[in-house]
């Protein structure tokens, strides 16, 4: 694996800002800036943070017959979501499932009038595109000439509206095109931090200019992958490859909410996606599910740490864990038996010692979306 990491259109800007660059999903990405992970995290919760997410895959799915319903029907054979019922200018969260009912990837999809725009995980792009290309009646087009940034935080709308008037009129999960300095931005009001904010697709040729214009706003600081991870962990959001993968069903990942009634047993368009029998049978009856954990004391309990019931029986391993700067203590997530109630104490084995953790509901911080 001596492959060279790819660079986003913001690489030079990251280096100029003093970022520490690390390899991530085949890309050279900023893990932190001189501000440091803790301050970057808190800055995002208090003001506005700019994230380079250009490594993520942007894909267009266009109906060959010009009828968007054709593309919706095709996508619904891969994604257990209500694609057909998604209004123009709106975005939803969904999952690709496999034949065993596991999760191939998670994604955002938006109805952009005559096509759908999908945003998928960097580590799954090639797999997802190949998967989409099995569909008949649609053309699948990877977007290779645009980067993607996220502006997140309570002051994101104020900062972005100075450059792009009108964004403050958008609601959570709206998706639209707006002009900035002669180029079309594809903007959704969404993110991966639990904060209000936007994800903005920008033509590669103007990506760095746009990022610089955002960084020139007094509210905005650049934020690396380190804080991105602690922000999404506090927000109770799963990370693909950690909190879910091909061996984990939507119910086990606590993502059953993304499967609406219309696709469930008894619904008008029930099933019809890979692994539907397993996925639907498990909804509401899964023996394990993803939960929040609050370790006692200050020591972070990280991914891979073994978990035990109070009687000593092994019950799982931590799938994501670390320190939550806004929570002010360690937090973690794991798939554990669903019958363990919130408030129960379980044990983690850390450096040969047992550490108690309290099982809790997710998220750890209350989201502040503009619905």
């Amino acid at each position, binding site marked *: 694996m001596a492959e060279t990491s790819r660079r986003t259109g913001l690489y030079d800007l990251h280096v100029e800002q003093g970022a520490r660059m690390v390899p991530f999903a085949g890309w050279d990405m900023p*893990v*932190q800036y001189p501000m*440091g*992970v*803790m*301050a970057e995290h808190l800055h995002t919760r208090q003001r506005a943070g700019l994230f380079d997410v250009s490594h993520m895959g942007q894909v267009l799915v266009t109906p060959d017959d010009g009828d968007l319903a054709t593309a919706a029907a095709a996508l619904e054979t891969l994604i257990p979501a209500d694609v057909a019922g998604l209004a123009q200018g709106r975005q939803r969260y969904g999952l690709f499932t496999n034949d065993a009912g596991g999760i191939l990837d998670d994604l955002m999809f938006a109805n952009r009038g005559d096509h759908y725009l999908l945003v998928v995980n960097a580590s799954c792009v090639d797999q997802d595109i190949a998967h989409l290309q099995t569909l008949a009646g649609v053309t699948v087009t990877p977007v290779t000439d645009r980067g993607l940034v996220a502006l997140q935080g309570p002051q994101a709308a104020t900062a972005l509206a100075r450059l792009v008037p009108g964004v403050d009129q958008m609601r959570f999960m709206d998706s639209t095109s707006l002009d900035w300095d002669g180029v079309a931005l594809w903007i959704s009001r969404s993110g991966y931090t639990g904060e209000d904010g936007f994800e903005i697709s920008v033509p590669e040729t103007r990506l760095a200019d746009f990022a610089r214009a955002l960084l020139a706003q007094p509210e905005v600081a650049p934020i690396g992958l*380190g804080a991105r991870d*602690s922000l999404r962990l506090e927000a109770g959001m799963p990370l693909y490859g950690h909190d879910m993968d091909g061996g984990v069903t939507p119910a086990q990942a606590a993502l059953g909410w993304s499967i609406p009634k219309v696709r469930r047993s008894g619904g008008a368009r029930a099933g019809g996606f890979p692994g539907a029998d397993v996925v639907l049978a498990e909804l509401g009856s899964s023996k394990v599910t993803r939960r929040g954990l609050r370790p006692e*004391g*200050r*020591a*972070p309990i*990280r991914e891979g740490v073994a978990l035990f019931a109070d009687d000593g029986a092994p019950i799982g391993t931590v799938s994501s864990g*670390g*320190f939550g*700067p806004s929570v002010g203590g*360690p937090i973690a997530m794991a798939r554990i038996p669903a019958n363990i109630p919130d408030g129960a104490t379980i044990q983690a084995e850390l*450096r040969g010692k047992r550490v108690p953790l309290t099982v809790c509901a997710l998220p750890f911080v209350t989201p502040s979306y503009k619905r």
Partner: protein
Amino acid sequence: MLKYTEDHEWLRAEGDEIVVGITKHASEQLGDVVFIELPEEGREVSAGDEIVVIESVKAASDITAPVAGTITAVNEALSDSPGDVNGDPMTAWFFRIKPTDAGALDGFMDEAAYKALVD
């Protein structure tokens, strides 16, 4: 006079004891420190024993005993405010050790040699 280890610890002789902390370089590499587990006072350690756990927002790492000896004191304040290590690492000491061998500090780097290592 300060001495330094290749593991980025600073060592300061005080009487017949050595005070141990980590360097600014180490604290910058670690990132924001959120948890520190210190050894017990009175513990007998060998050189190289992992006796302190430091957890930063990024990862867990260890600090080893630079020399063999007995832990005579630990900086309990760090347990409550581990971030002090990022603030001023040269005053945020971890533990004091009474070395078994009186000449224990002789082999370690001086400031010039340490600077050459990290620059």
